[in-house]
């Protein structure tokens, strides 16, 4: 057994990056990602890693430099948040199209405007069709473990797709918590030598990402989709190995007190800790409730949800982002996944915590009450509303 140390969520990402010891990191600071880049550059300055740290002038350049390095076969990483992710947008798509297994720490923050530096998922949800794997994390330990597993997943020859390791800005990124890291040797042994040798070499120069028109673009896009389909098989394998080696068991969808539950609350990232706390107190009152936490949003775990959710009578989905004029992302994709299933549960959505508003226990308690109404009377089925907003 290892020993607990005190790390913020941002430091947990940087610590995992240090132990991976990537060849190249190019990052530009943006609140609340800044401590990831800051801490990692400290490791570079202290000689604790062999990484070449590229101090770029913007996020667009950060992703460009990362793409260049990865194309040449380097283990390359970056980190960003909010408007930073928005600024690297163009190259985010290019990274996945070139099938480069880049890792990116995303510290989820609201998109402008008006400017807001706090945590919500509008940044990552905007990038949900960019062709990246997206892993969401409730706490700092998860951030750390996901980073190490994500490397194996992204670099797997069946996958070769970049991955975002997401966490909530400030809520976890700036909160010190207990984290039990592995040793450097354990990490190095687990990740192994990089199999992906890169496409561009000095003796075999060629152009990547040139023009790809009606003749082949379509085929290349389909290949990205095919790679995504293979992700969960690799995830299962990597998670099992991680559990076997280090005793920490993760799953594509985490279930909490669902055994005999007839209602569940589903959501992403840090709010699920609050949900579990409310589940515990509701259980004491005899309410058969549980929590369900997808750890992946891309690929979206459709088959897992189709297996799992019909066990329950009613489901509430919490989204920490909006889709103006449409249904919020986690809610709408869950609905779509359930279409046509016999015994599909009743379902209701809530948009919560935009711009970092605290989703406190009292708010979740009202969700539990409404969820019981949904179960008993069907009230609110197939609707979504806002939680904790002033009218």
């Amino acid at each position, binding site marked *: 057994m290892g020993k607990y140390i005190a790390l913020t969520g941002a430091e947990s990402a940087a610590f995992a990056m240090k132990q991976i010891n990537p060849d190249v990191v190019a990052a530009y600071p943006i609140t609340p990602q800044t401590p990831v880049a800051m801490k990692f550059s400290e490791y570079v300055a202290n000689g604790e890693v062999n990484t070449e740290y590229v101090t770029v002038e913007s996020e667009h350049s950060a992703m460009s430099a990362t793409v260049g390095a990865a194309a040449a076969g380097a283990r390359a990483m970056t980190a960003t948040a909010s408007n930073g992710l928005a600024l690297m947008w163009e190259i985010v798509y290019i990274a996945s199209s070139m099938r480069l297994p880049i890792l990116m720490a995303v510290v989820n923050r609201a998109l402008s405007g008006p400017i807001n530096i706090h945590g919500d998922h509008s940044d990552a949800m905007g990038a949900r069709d960019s062709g990246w794997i997206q892993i969401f994390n409730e706490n700092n330990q998860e951030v750390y473990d996901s980073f190490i597993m994500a490397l194996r997943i992204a670099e797997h020859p069946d996958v070769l797709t970049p991955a975002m390791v997401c966490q909530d800005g400030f809520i976890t990124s700036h909160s*010190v918590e*207990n984290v039990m890291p592995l040793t450097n040797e354990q990490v190095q042994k687990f990740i192994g030598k990089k199999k992906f040798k890169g496409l561009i070499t000095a003796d075999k120069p060629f152009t990547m990402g040139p023009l790809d028109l009606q003749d082949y673009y379509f085929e290349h896009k389909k290949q990205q989709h095919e790679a995504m389909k293979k992700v969960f098989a690799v995830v299962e394998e990597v998670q099992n190995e991680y559990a076997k080696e280090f005793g920490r068991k993760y799953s594509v969808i985490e279930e909490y007190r669902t055994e005999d539950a007839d209602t569940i609350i589903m959501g992403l990232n840090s709010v699920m*800790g*609050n949900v579990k706390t409310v589940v515990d107190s509701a259980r004491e009152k005899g309410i058969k409730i549980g929590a369900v936490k997808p750890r992946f949003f891309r690929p979206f775990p459709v088959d897992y949800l189709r297996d799992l959710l019909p066990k329950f009578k009613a489901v509430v989905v919490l989204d920490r982002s909006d889709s103006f004029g449409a249904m919020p992302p986690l809610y709408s994709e869950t609905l779509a996944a359930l279409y046509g299933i016999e015994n599909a549960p009743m379902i209701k959505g809530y948009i919560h915590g935009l711009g970092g508003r605290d989703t406190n226990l009292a708010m979740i308690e009202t969700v539990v009450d409404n969820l019981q109404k949904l179960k008993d009377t069907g009230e609110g089925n197939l609707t979504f509303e806002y939680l904790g907003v002033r009218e």
Partner: protein
Amino acid sequence: MGNVFEITWYGRGGLGAKTGAILLADAAITADKFVQAFPEYGPERMGAPLKVYNRISDVEIRLHTAITHPDFIIVIDPSLLQNIDFNEELKDNGTILINTDNSVEEIRSKIKLGNKNAKVYAIDATGISVKVLGKNIPNIAILGAFSKITGLIELEEVKKHIHEKLMTKYGKDIINKNIEALEAAYKEVEK
């Protein structure tokens, strides 16, 4: 869920409340506790009021939400006292630690405590800090007093973490002075 001990620090940017909360968390982890230390961020600027939170527990902490009714309130800047409704905020039988040169009786009569049952402690952390460090950075002295009052963290552990966390940034001289402030407050606070 088990009992989670919750602390709210009231301070201003530049007084070291955040560093104090992190050192507290570090010291509690070495005592095999589960911890959290997190600030409530507004726009960050020197001198602006801010709150920092700690949770300490024997079991894993799952909560990711602000603390509204703490067991323990630390007021690191006494100029904020008028804005704090201790009666509303503090848990019953909670504890308040105030950085002040007033006596406990004096300060008790000045704060919004109502008929709340609470223990109040006073420590002149600013006085200690100015005397030892030559400036007002009262966070470490506060930790000395906190250690004695609660017994939740060991003075030696706090010292160790001050060394680890602050040595590179501040150097030996400042570290030694901080440790002097820590010990002085530990001695001075009346339990």
